[in-house]
């Protein structure tokens, strides 16, 4: 190894916390050490071996020859091309060429619509942000951010299909007529709520009394008369029972929860106060992001979750003076001493905060568990305080079992599938819903994709995207929220849900400009035109839905057996990237690493280390990168391959790659749902061709379909699975060790409780004040910079004839804070950044080689206390988003031979893409590993077609024109051979500054003088405090990112944040002076809990 390896200082003596990213690192396996020595992932830095170098050299020469020949051909025809400017014929109102227009709309979702503001350029939607005016606004998550890509997806369904062949609208109208004539038809809605849809459903029910209505989404509970919405602002103590309320299973607007994770309150306005923080207890079997945020997380087998819930219920009821229902006694208490203590302390804490406590059960858990949670909430008087019960628009709709029954009994002869779920793919396997669908005389599928359901139905009609449709929706708390179209449907055949429903009433399918949906929504909205315009402008009408008195369900019994190695529990988990599989065609989501497993493009079975050892697969898994792995077809690629296991359950079995996951309950396998929708001949495990037409380029050959194992009774949890190891191996594109940083105290954590360390007692205040001195920073001497950060006194002197400081801008000096106390590690910022900055998708093979282009890297660390006597195998999870930190003294700038990366006067580390020649010195010299290199022309050559990138100029270019329409016109689309990275959304900053400059003219006009007489002030030119938001900050549901102008001083959130003692510089001791500061994570443990002393010590050291 010729490379000089920096010896990081030893981890301080007395440090009890062990931290790691991947199982290889924890085990110190040989291939992990190789990775470490190599610094960059194999193919991201060098040729793999001689043979690889040889093939690459040959292909390089071949390509050069080809391109020279082509250049010769085109040279002959080379003339200066004429370019045209084509203005509108009739200028449309409001549109100013080159300026964005913003409209309020909303994305319908089962947990309540997400209010959004859509950025459009010349009528083309390009970016989504949260509508902060909306009372239920809680940022956006990755799904919302990525949903805009679906609009432009080349594999979007574009034609009406009849038995898979293109058909016309008249045929479809005839079928609808047939259905309405018979009157025996059923409509399957999604789990989202829409007032206009409900109104039309009622009209349809009145006109056709035998029409039936259903509601189905595979990961949402069946429709009920009311639903419970949590109010996290009031919740002091929260108990989550297998409930990922922070991320994949929303139970109410989430931002208020994160506001209370900051000891200084929202916007860092208050003095630090540990009592103002909430406390989260999580009891769960799989690791969720909510569990990662928890102050006390109990890792427990699925069969015991409900018993613990029952234990807590008994204790809470006893302490609040209520009587426990008899059914509770059917749950045997958990007798393990540690857990008994845990439960007692937790119950005490909940009771002490009675009225401000909240218990949440996951929406996918069993009815028995939800009933117990309801009973505890009742005992804690949570209803009306931390929990609201709201009437649902979907009350009375049947579930999927009812649909099957009605189809089988011919109660309905025609069925219209309007649900965003993929019924034929994700309905419980035992229902055999496809067979029932075939019994119907006609079935009409409406959707964005020609998925399994489109093929199972007799008719398919392409759906208009929600950004192309008129509609309305209810947000989490039931506020009436409007959905307005940004653009006419891109494809003529596309219709919206309301247009299809209207067609049932009047027989004619309308779309585009004559849409019946507009009239339908306008009719639901009863206000006058002024109110309508206001509602359109703001996107909503405030007024929560009527509260429905929740009728207490009776606590029911449930018998679960304890799992063992021979009879494992299986949890069908919601996938962090593609949810229930509906996003399988979305390349941004597929490529964003799973927040916890860091797996991209596939799913895999997750098993805890001890169980894996017991099953004999652990050693196989940690040796992912084995020299025996077959060499990949393209001559280069990461050869990380996971072993494939066979899981048999209830007489069925699947083969799926396996990964070791930390913090899972023992004897539990977690299987993320949604993958495996179609395979073609390129499939690595030779599963194809199978259902290849159900998916497009993005979704083909992705993961394994685990839905075959799910039945109606086991949609979430199944018991009695058996695992055997197969000989097969499958490549996995894991990003956890890519672009890894090394150093002391990368992510820092403190506790509100007194901590004993080095035989000294550290109070919360002491820990808080000592954050900046954690790790190396405690004893490393301050850096002395020889570099003066000044310009030249000779060439560019200031007014006084002396050298000027390089950061000379006296109007703006940008800076960012990332608060780890709020960050849960979801991918919202990562995908928002991708949408804003035209970041390309590179495909699974390239990700496996460490060439993912995301400017924000979401690091996820695990940490455990060596002395943890409570549960040594339940590590803390610490996420840390890292983008370019804009060092004032940037190591990358000094090594660039062409000055392509330089500093701006306002403190950005800028990239001039047109200047970059791609030496990659800068990336080598970046200690934060924040720079990304375009190894291929990902924007021009489609990376999703197998081997396409390696064909050079002969490769296929991008499919279709539509994907280019999403691009942000203010950001350069980078080409091959160019380095890129975060520049704090410089396009947004510039826009804001230019807009602000127009104020001079206003000042002159207002003064009544001429412009030479009016002196321009700083106030005129400096943009208002906190008025510009960068894309990641805007998207963050947790308010973890603050950004602003340092010169605004304390008025700016970012300055208030960075003046707090818990903010620190990442890798401070190397002296880069970053502009992005991190703020230590604060955990708020309960002193009486048996695991309290191990909480809040997860400071991450990487060796």
């Amino acid at each position, binding site marked *: 190894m010729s490379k000089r390896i920096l010896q990081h200082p030893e981890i301080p003596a007395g440090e009890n916390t062990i931290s790691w990213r991947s199982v290889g690192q924890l085990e110190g396996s040989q291939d992990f050490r190789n990775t470490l020595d190599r610094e960059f992932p194999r193919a991201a830095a060098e040729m793999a071996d001689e043979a690889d170098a040889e093939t690459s050299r040959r292909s390089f020469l071949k390509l050069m020859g080809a391109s020279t020949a082509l250049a010769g051909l085109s040279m002959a025809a080379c003339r200066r091309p004429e370019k045209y400017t084509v203005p509108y*014929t009739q200028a449309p109102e409001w549109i*100013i060429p080159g300026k964005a227009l913003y409209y309020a709309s909303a994305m319908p979702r089962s947990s309540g619509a997400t209010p959004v503001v859509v950025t459009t350029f010349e009528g083309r939607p390009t970016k989504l942000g949260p509508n902060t005016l909306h009372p239920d606004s809680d940022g956006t998550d990755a799904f919302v951010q990525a949903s805009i890509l679906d609009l432009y997806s080349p594999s979007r369904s574009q034609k009406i299909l009849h038995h898979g062949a293109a058909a016309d609208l008249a045929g479809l109208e005839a079928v609808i007529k047939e259905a309405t004539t018979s009157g025996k038809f059923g409509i399957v809605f999604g789990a989202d709520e829409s007032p206009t849809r409900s109104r039309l459903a009622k009209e349809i029910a009145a006109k056709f009394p035998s029409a039936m209505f259903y509601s189905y989404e595979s990961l949402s509970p069946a429709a009920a008369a009311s639903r419970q919405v949590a109010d996290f602002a009031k919740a002091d103590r929260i108990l989550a029972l297998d409930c990922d309320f922070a991320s994949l299973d929303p139970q109410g607007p989430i931002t208020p929860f994160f506001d209370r994770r900051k000891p200084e309150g929202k916007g860092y306005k208050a003095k630090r106060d540990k009592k103002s923080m909430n406390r989260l207890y999580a009891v769960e079997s799989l690791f969720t992001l909510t569990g990662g945020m928890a102050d006390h997380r109990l890792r427990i087998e699925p069969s015991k979750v409900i018993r613990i819930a029952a234990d807590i219920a008994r204790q809470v009821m006893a302490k609040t003076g209520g009587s426990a229902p008899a059914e509770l006694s059917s749950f045997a208490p958990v007798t393990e001493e540690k857990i008994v203590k845990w439960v007692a302390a937790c119950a005490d804490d909940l009771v002490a905060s009675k009225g401000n406590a909240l218990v949440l059960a996951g929406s996918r858990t069993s009815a028995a568990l939800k009933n117990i949670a309801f009973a505890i909430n009742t005992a804690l008087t949570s209803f009306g305080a931390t929990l609201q019960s709201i009437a649902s628009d979907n009350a009375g709709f049947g579930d999927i079992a009812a649909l099957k029954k009605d189809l089988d009994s011919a109660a309905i002869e025609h069925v219209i599938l309007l649900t965003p779920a993929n019924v034929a793919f994700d309905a419980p396997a035992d229902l055999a819903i496809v067979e029932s669908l075939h019994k119907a005389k006609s079935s009409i599928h409406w959707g964005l994709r020609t998925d399994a359901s489109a093929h199972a139905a007799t008719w398919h009609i392409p759906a208009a995207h929600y950004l192309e449709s008129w509609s309305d929706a209810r947000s989490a708390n039931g506020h009436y929220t409007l959905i307005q179209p940004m653009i006419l449907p891109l494809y003529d055949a596309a219709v919206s849900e309301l247009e299809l429903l209207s067609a049932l009433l009047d027989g004619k399918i309308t779309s585009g400009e004559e849409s019946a949906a507009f009239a339908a929504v306008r009719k639901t909205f009863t206000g006058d035109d002024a109110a309508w315009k206001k509602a359109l402008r703001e996107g909503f009408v405030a007024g929560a839905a009527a509260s429905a008195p929740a009728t207490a369900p009776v606590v029911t019994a449930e018998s679960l057996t304890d799992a063992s190695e021979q009879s494992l529990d299986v949890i069908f988990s919601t996938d962090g990237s593609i949810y229930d599989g509906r996003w399988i065609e979305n390349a941004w989501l597929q490529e964003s690493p799973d927040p916890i497993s860091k797996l991209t493009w596939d799913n895999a079975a997750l098993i805890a280390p001890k169980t894996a050892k017991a099953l004999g697969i652990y050693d196989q898994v940690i040796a992912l990168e084995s020299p025996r792995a077959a060499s990949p077809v393209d001559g280069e690629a990461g050869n990380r391959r996971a072993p494939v296991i066979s899981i048999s359950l209830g007489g069925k079995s699947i083969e799926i790659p396996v990964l070791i996951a930390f913090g899972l309950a023992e004897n539990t396998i977690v299987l993320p749902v949604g993958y495996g929708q179609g395979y073609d001949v390129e499939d690595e495990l030779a599963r194809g061709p199978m259902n290849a037409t159900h998916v497009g380029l993005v979704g083909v050959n992705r993961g394994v379909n685990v839905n075959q194992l799910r039945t109606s009774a086991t949609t979430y949890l199944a018991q009695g699975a058996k695992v055997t190891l197969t000989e097969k191996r499958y490549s996995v594109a894991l990003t956890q060790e890519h672009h890894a940083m090394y150093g002391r105290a990368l992510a820092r954590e403190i506790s509100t409780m007194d901590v004993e360390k080095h035989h000294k007692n550290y109070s919360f205040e002491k820990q808080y004040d000592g954050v900046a001195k954690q790790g190396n920073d405690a004893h490393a001497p301050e850096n002395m910079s020889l570099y003066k950060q000044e310009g030249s006194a000779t060439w560019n002197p200031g007014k006084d004839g002396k050298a000027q400081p390089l950061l000379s801008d006296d109007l703006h000096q940008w800076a960012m804070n990332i608060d780890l106390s709020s960050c849960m590690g979801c991918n919202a910022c990562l995908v928002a950044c991708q949408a804003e900055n035209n970041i390309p998708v590179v495909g699974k093979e390239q990700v496996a080689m460490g060439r993912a282009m995301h400017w924000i890297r979401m690091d996820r660390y695990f940490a455990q206390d060596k002395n943890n006597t409570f549960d040594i195998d339940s590590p803390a999870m610490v996420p840390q988003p890292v983008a370019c930190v804009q060092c004032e003294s940037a190591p990358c700038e000094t090594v660039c031979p062409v000055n392509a990366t330089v500093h701006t006067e306002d403190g950005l580390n800028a990239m001039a893409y047109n200047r970059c020649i791609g030496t990659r010195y800068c990336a080598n010299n970046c200690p934060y590993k924040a720079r990304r290199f375009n190894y291929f022309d990902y924007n021009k050559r489609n990376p999703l077609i197998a081997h396409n990138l390696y064909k050079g100029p002969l490769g296929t270019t991008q499919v279709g024109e539509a994907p280019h329409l999403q691009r942000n016109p203010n950001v350069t*689309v980078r080409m091959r051979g160019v380095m890129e990275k975060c520049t704090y959304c410089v396009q947004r900053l510039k826009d804001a500054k230019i807009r602000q400059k127009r104020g001079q003219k206003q000042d002159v006009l207002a003064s009544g003088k001429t412009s030479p007489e009016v002196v321009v002030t700083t106030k005129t030119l400096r943009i208002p405090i906190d008025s510009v938001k960068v894309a990641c900050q805007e998207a963050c549901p947790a308010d973890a990112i603050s950004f602003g102008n340092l010169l605004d001083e304390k008025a700016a959130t970012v300055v208030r944040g960075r003046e707090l003692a818990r903010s620190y510089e990442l890798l401070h001791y190397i002296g880069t002076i970053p502009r992005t500061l991190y703020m230590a994570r604060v955990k708020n443990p309960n002193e009486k809990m048996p695991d309290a002393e191990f909480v809040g010590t997860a400071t991450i050291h990487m060796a």
Partner: protein
Amino acid sequence: MANIFPRWTNLLPLKIAICAGSVAVGVVAAFTVYATPKSTVVGYQPSQPIPFSHKIHVDQLGLDCRYCHSFVDNSDHSNLPSANTCWNCHQHVQRQSPKLDPLHRAMDKTHPLYDGKPIEWVKVHKAPDYVKFSHSAHVNRGVSCVSCHGQVDQMDVVFHAKNHSMGFCLECHRAPENEVRPLEEVFNLKYDAAQYLQDNVVLNDKGERITEPKEFGKQLKETFKLQPKESCATCHH
């Protein structure tokens, strides 16, 4: 002593010089034609679908730049007028002129050529994709159209008057005092600083009247608090 070099070598140096010279000229010519940026083609004067004369409209009729380029002080782009802007006048003026056929084609529903297709103007000034230039940032801060586009008001057919190379941009960003003028005069293409100083009383810091255009420029730079940036990200992102 025998000749070392045969006779034919006498002319060799000359031949080599001529060859090398013509190769060099060829390379320079080819580079100039094919490889220099389009933004630096001074004198480029394509013919337009409608022979629109700025001289007639601006100089003779006195139209303001912003009547047609209506968003120049609002947006990054200086828009070309949409056809309905032309039609505002030309449905009354010169309606029969065959030169206006493309306009009729776009706007005049009674015209036999009407197809509603927009007019395709040929681009004269083109900034490369990797350059972000904002018109509004300049015209709102005292930089006139003339500074970059020349005396468009005197042009019958618009041509590329100035070399829009990066050096050209930097020249002004380093010394804005040479180009800056009062905000009121930005769209006055006939503005003359000396004349302005004669007509208006402008005082300097010491309370003395400014008469020198150069001093006026410096004074304006101070008053306007102009700090044009020179870092890459100013235009490239």
